[in-house]
């Protein structure tokens, strides 16, 4: 694994915008960066693929352990939500589209799981489409660990047989260009698979109190819903009790059981069940591991409220609005520095199988909303 410098394409800004990357700036920091790329060997890609599939299996085993042995309270999940999670796990275990494992990797040590974005992963369009166009134009003949687009369409085709009702609504929070672009892309892949689709801002979802149904803006019932909006928020908001009441009368993507894997509270359980596993980092709820460690909120996004503690000082902490549900401790990953940057590999699992990677790099150890996306290839 190497980080290499290169010239950007002529007109690259227009090209990425035409590919749908309409959120290229975060606080003035460019998000897409093609003056460099990461190059992997085929062996390294095989290692990443195998690690991703292994982690997926470990996570499903951990979910089974947590759900079937009544350990959901350990994840700060309330009893009413836990009851519906148990039903969801037993009835719709394979009703899932995707997830993204965030990995620390340098080509020398095994990939290490930092966290699993199991519920509302983004960084999708740039990994699936934008970096592929970059490869085709810049390095025709080289390859990329990326079949994300094809796998999404393939998985939608499978899910189509499970979906009992049309249309499949796609909902998201207003005000985030990244979420809008992600949902628009996912709708496109679903439409290519033959699904009938519709979109709806999450705050426009109505609750019909007499029919006891969620409805769209025309008061038509919503029976199938893809949501790019986290489960822990949906169940905690005003309509949360209604949601739990009618959950099994609808079909939700991702299903509610994914909440178990999207909390960082699953990391100590993964370690407990698989101590010393080469793809895991030591993690605990009660006490920091020995050596350097990271403190992460159970639920948080974009690296918010994360603290890095290093035995020799150089501590680091990010601000944010998370942490009410508690924190976990995780051993600090053995990050390697590539030309002053720390890459985190987002490894996609689609339909239960590894499908490709996208890389974000940062000058700091914590990947946050200012980290930038850098394309990759392998030879």
């Amino acid at each position, binding site marked *: 694994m190497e980080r290499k410098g290169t010239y950007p394409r002529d007109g690259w800004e227009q090209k990425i915008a035409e590919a749908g990357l309409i959120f290229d700036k975060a606080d003035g920091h460019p998000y897409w960066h093609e003056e460099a790329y990461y190059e992997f060997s085929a062996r390294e890609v095989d290692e990443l693929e195998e690690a991703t599939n292994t982690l997926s299996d470990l996570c499903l085993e951990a979910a089974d352990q947590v759900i079937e042995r009544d350990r959901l309270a350990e994840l700060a999940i309330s009893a009413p939500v836990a009851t519906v999670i148990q039903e969801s796990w037993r009835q719709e275990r394979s009703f899932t589209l995707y997830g993204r494992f965030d990995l620390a990797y340098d080509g020398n040590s095994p990939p290490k799981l930092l966290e699993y974005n199991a519920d*509302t*992963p*983004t960084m999708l369009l740039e990994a699936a489409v934008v970096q592929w166009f970059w490869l085709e134009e810049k390095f025709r003949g080289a390859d990329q660990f990326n079949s994300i687009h094809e796998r999404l369409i393939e998985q939608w085709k499978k899910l189509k047989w499970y979906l009992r009702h049309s249309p499949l609504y796609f909902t998201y929070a207003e005000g985030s260009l990244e*979420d809008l672009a*992600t949902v628009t892309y996912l709708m496109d892949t679903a439409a290519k698979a033959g699904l009938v689709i519709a979109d709806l801002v999450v705050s426009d979802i109505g609750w019909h*109190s007499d029919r006891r149904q969620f409805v769209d803006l025309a008061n038509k019932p919503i029976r199938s819903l893809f949501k790019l909006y986290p489960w822990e928020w949906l169940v905690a908001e005003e*309509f949360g009790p209604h949601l739990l009441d009618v959950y099994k009368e609808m079909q939700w993507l991702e299903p509610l059981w994914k909440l178990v894997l999207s909390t960082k509270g699953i990391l100590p359980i993964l370690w407990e069940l698989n101590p010393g596993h080469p793809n895991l980092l030591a993690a605990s709820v009660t006490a920091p591991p020995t050596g350097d460690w990271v403190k992460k909120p159970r639920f948080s996004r974009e690296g918010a409220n994360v603290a890095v503690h290093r035995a020799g000082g150089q501590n680091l902490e990010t601000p944010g609005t998370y942490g009410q549900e508690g924190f976990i401790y995780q051993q600090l990953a053995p990050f390697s520095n590539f030309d002053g940057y720390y890459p985190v590999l987002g490894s996609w699992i689609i339909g239960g199988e590894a499908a490709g990677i996208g890389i974000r790099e940062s000058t700091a150890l914590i990947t946050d909303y200012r980290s930038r996306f850098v394309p990759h290839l392998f030879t």
Partner: protein
Amino acid sequence: MKKSALITFGLIMSTLILCSCEDRCCVDAQGNVVEDEKCKKEEKTRAAGGHGGGFYWYYGGTHGGVGSRASGGSFTPGVLRGGFGSLGAFHGAKGG
């Protein structure tokens, strides 16, 4: 004296805004609020093929508690919106 007046005003205000039929509330034929149990009992009676006793669900609007008159709502069921999205607005980022 001034303090007492304020307290009284506060009590009146709290009575006036004591309840809302945000979801629904039960009223009689004159629109006066009664206990929800009367509407629930009537639903069961009607479901069993019986006649109702003149109690109705009232959707939206406000009232001052049982015995007061409900207003500002409708006898047709309401659709509430805005029950999702508040935490997204608070935290600012959604996906991850």
